[in-house]
């Protein structure tokens, strides 16, 4: 089956006066994937989503959602949007809001809505203005998925959610993706995206820095390997071994920081009497930070 882009942008650019919020963005998000959109605050993530939904108009370039324009109600009918901060009339209860949006969308499935409210443990009768930040976040999630959209645009979805609810949210996203939905997941923190996304784009100061698979990023990531040795720990054994960027020795242990493949390190270690190997989870955050800071990886 040929791949089909659900989100496409061509040279999408947005300036606010002298502020270059987004510069020449070319992006293609394929059907059925969870696409992470990463960048520090102010990198242009929200600007991108607002351009996609036609809330703001590009300075140049163009964008397509589900093969059409985000301004088209027929397209919006198939899209769910979770804003970074959901603003609704403070007097509305969750029921009011879901009822209103549901009518505009030709009716929600009441059983699905009831399930969502239960899963996120939301009291639908309380005015939104009285809810805590976390609970308002939940209202945002529920209204974004209540119509089972084909495409979800999520802006910082799990900020303000406790770990239990983050887990609940991840289950929900996986479920929707399992049914064929595509998810565009914007975030400024990696762990939120890492657990769900297959591919991530990294954005810095309005420019796309890279698009890469999470696996690929992981391969680039530095890993830490601790070798517990029977004999004396001599750092010289690993100096000059390809991939090794740091060696610390101490108390019969060599602590190595390795970039890229660990193959040569293992081969070098084979000559020593290794009692125990401890590896630490690949530090994706580190790769990510290097992109943020603009250092070529």
């Amino acid at each position, binding site marked *: 089956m040929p791949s089909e882009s659900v989100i496409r942008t061509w040279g999408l650019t947005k300036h606010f006066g002298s502020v270059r919020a987004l510069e020449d963005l070319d992006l293609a998000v394929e059907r059925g994937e969870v696409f992470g959109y990463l960048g520090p605050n102010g990198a242009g993530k929200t600007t991108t989503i607002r351009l996609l939904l036609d*809330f703001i*108009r590009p300075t140049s370039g163009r964008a397509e959602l589900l093969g059409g324009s985000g301004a088209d109600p027929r397209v919006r009918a198939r899209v769910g949007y979770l804003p970074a901060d959901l603003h*609704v009339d403070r007097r509305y209860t969750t029921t009011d809001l879901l009822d209103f*949006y549901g009518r*505009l969308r030709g009716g929600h499935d009441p059983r699905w809505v009831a399930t969502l409210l239960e899963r996120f443990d939301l009291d639908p009768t309380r005015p939104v203005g009285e809810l805590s930040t976390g609970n308002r976040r939940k209202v945002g999630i529920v209204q974004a998925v209540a119509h089972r959209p084909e495409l979800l645009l999520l802006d910082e979805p799990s900020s303000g959610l406790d770990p239990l609810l983050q887990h609940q949210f991840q289950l929900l996203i996986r479920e929707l993706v399992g049914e064929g939905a595509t998810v565009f997941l914007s975030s400024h923190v990696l762990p939120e995206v890492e657990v769900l996304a297959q591919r991530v784009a990294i954005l810095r100061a309005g420019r796309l820095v890279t698009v890469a698979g999470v696996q690929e990023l992981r391969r680039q990531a530095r890993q830490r390997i601790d070798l517990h040795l029977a004999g004396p720990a001599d750092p010289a054994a690993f100096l000059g071994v390809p991939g090794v960027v740091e060696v610390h020795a101490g108390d019969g242990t060599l602590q190595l920081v390795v970039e890229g493949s660990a193959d040569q390190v293992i081969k070098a270690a084979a000559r020593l009497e290794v009692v125990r190997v401890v590896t630490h989870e690949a530090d994706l955050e580190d790769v990510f930070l290097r992109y943020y800071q603009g250092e070529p990886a």
Partner: protein
Amino acid sequence: MIVAARLLRDRRRSTLWWTGGLLGLVAFTVAFYPSIRGQASFDQLVADLPEGFRAMIGYQGGVPLTSPPGYLHARLFATLAPVVVLVFGIGAGAQAIGGGEDAGTLEPLLANPVTRTRVATERYLAVVGLLLLLVAALAVALVVLGPPFGVLDGVALNGLLGACAGVFGIALLHTSLAFAVGAATGRRGPAVAVATTVAVAGYLVQSLLTLTDAMAPLRAVTPWHWYLDHNMLAEGPSAAAIILPVLVSLPLFLAGVAVFRRRDLH
């Protein structure tokens, strides 16, 4: 009309309060009439006032202030009734798009399958509906509360309806202006400010510039002049007071929507 229905529901409580206030104002005004009726000296007193001052208190040449049309015009239709409806309308008109955008509620709404044109049009129509409701309450209150105090003696029904339509007209015009500025800027503040300034300036031009003043022709372009030029309670409906505001409101509405469609949301 789902968006319009939601706005009507959102404003039902505040509309109820405004209607209650207007009813109280009518009740208070009509109940006071018997104490003025037949006081010829009062008319004499007013006749001696300078023309500008007479205009300000809603006095119309040839209609005695102590007669029902003169009294109702001066106490209600030339002063408080249009002001109350107008303030309500400006607030609601400015809120429709400008206020919603200020509060950030417009974006989540527009993420639904609705066009900007639809949202703006439905919200405008809902506000116009609220104005109609308030003016209808004014008319009904007068018809019900007026007769026991004799305040409708000699006032024809079409005159009363004409005067109420005039109140609606002048409020509609300023409401549409507030809506248009709100839709064009996405801000409530400028919408209220512009509409209020136009209303106050128009009122001052109409009431302070006397017929002999060199600037008097300016009066012809103020909505207050269209509305106050005739005592419709005594003389019957005036076409200018009813048709001209509608003719001005329509392009204001269209211009507001046109800008709203093109610009970035805040």
